[in-house]
């Protein structure tokens, strides 16, 4: 362990935190991933809406595409044309954001068109105002993820991961998509789309698609949703991804994997156990404090 490695580790943790937050917010502007099924159902149960329906794919494959594309572009610019890493990664992230915009537009148009019988219109102003916000978040995510991958693979830096740069970016893209999907979506799907139901009540299957389509004033847009998610869902996703990157690399930075590999494995196990215990305590406290969780009264006879 040296100071350079620790500095790089801190930089990776910080980049991952920003990337996690922007990834979750990017998916929230477009209602990608889990909450998407409810947006998709809304028109079918009689609630046409003006919410963005960005069904590109699940978050892991789409973020893997942005990260891999940005890394490939950066790699070509660096090794083929001798460009400085910082500018190469920035240009790579721009290309990724453009691809993100194209896929978002086709997904919004396609999904809404396929609901014609439910009177779901394709609103071009929704496309104009929201796609740019989606692309901006995708740019930040791609830039941060590719920077992490570059730090891990650059030949002049100490980590020197054996995998090639674009492949590491692909794996981190998949990872950030998975974490964004599992951590942040709950806040948007459970708490924003269904804010007219009692907190903690869960979603009865009969209420599927009954999402909030009207805002405090006017109709609800996805920009309103991302404003809400930026309060908690986005930052908490950032923290989850930042901690994942930081703690995972921390244990292999303090213990040399070549000579002290088992210490790194044991540290990993200890970290996982600590988190399980912490999560359990947090869950019990939340149940007690926020309820209502009525006691089970037995089955009601028909």
């Amino acid at each position, binding site marked *: 362990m040296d100071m350079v490695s620790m500095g790089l580790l801190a930089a990776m943790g910080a980049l991952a935190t920003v990337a996690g937050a922007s990834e979750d917010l990017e998916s929230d502007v477009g209602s990608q991933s889990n909450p998407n099924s409810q947006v998709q159902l809304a028109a079918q149960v*009689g609630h046409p*809406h003006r919410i963005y329906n960005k*069904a590109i*794919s699940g978050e892991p494959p789409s973020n893997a*595409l942005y990260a891999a594309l940005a*890394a*490939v572009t950066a790699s070509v610019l660096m090794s083929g044309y001798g460009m400085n890493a910082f500018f190469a990664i920035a240009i790579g992230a721009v290309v990724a954001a453009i691809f993100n915009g194209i896929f978002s537009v086709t997904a919004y*148009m*396609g999904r809404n068109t396929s609901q014609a019988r439910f009177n779901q219109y394709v609103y*071009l102003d929704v496309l104009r105002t929201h796609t740019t916000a989606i692309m901006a978040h995708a740019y930040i995510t791609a830039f941060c993820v590719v920077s992490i991958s570059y730090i891990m693979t650059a030949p002049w830096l100490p980590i020197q991961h054996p995998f090639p740069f674009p492949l590491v970016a692909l794996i981190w893209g998949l990872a950030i998509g998975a974490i964004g999907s599992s951590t942040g979506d709950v806040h948007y799907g459970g708490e924003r789309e269904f804010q007219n139901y009692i907190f903690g009540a869960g979603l009865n299957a009969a209420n599927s698609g009954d999402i909030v389509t009207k805002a405090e004033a006017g109709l609800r847009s996805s920009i309103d949703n991302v404003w809400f998610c930026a309060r908690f869902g986005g930052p908490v996703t950032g923290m989850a991804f930042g901690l994942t990157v930081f703690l995972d690399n921390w244990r292999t930075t303090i213990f040399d994997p070549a000579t002290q590999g088992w210490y790194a494995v044991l540290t990993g196990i200890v970290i996982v156990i600590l988190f399980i215990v912490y999560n359990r305590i947090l869950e019990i406290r939340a149940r007690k404090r926020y309820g209502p969780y009525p006691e089970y009264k037995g089955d009601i006879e028909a």
Partner: protein
Amino acid sequence: MSVAAGGGAAKIDKTKLMMYGLGGGVLGIYLAHVLNEVTGTTYFSFLAGLGVIAAVVMGADATRRVCSYGIGTGVPSIGLMAMGMGLVAAMFGLSIGGVAGPIIGIAVSMGFGYFVGLLTNRIIKMNIPVMEETLMTLGGAGAIVLIGLGVMVSGVIDYRTIIGNVIDTGYIAIIFIAGSLAILHPFNANLGPDETQDRTLIHAVSAGALAMFATGLASLETIGSEGIISMIVAAIVWLVFFRRFFELVKRDSAGVKGTGLLPEGGL
């Protein structure tokens, strides 16, 4: 055919699409190889990319047919599975077959797909009638996409060159994921009760062109500035087919509005 997630009946027959996909894919890959070898350049690599677009259309149609059944998984899983099967088979074919490698790879991948389909229907008992046939088609499409984009980056059908240019550089990352999205995105993006086959397939062409463009970027380093031809061709194909997709959106949708409130009954 009235099904859960997908929309109207197929206007283009699946056998015809399979012929175009397989024929176009193999033709594109071999034309790129032969013309590059004969002329001693890499100007014709873009032809492999055009072959890939044909295979993507075939794969997107197979995705459409199998995912219409509500198979209990997301559409993306099917596209990624196609590329997974294609990757193993393509590398196997190229490593043992030399110039005949693509044919062997595609055949093995299709056999692989058929076998996986048999397993899902007979062992897991999903009992989805089109499973064997669609997974076979998807396996073939995955293999053509991987080999085609690999040849686009390398310029020739040669195992060692493809390993050096595609695997060692890490460009397999973009080939794999852009190819997967090209196969899975068209149906995923058009999913719904009023989905139409022509709109999904036109979208597949534009998504295939995006995969070709992304891989063309990678080929700028491996085959040099000739790679720009692939990017320009891909950009033109994308532009033409995106405009056609928008025309079909206007044809099929309840209404394309500049702005406006919700329709009657929505408030």
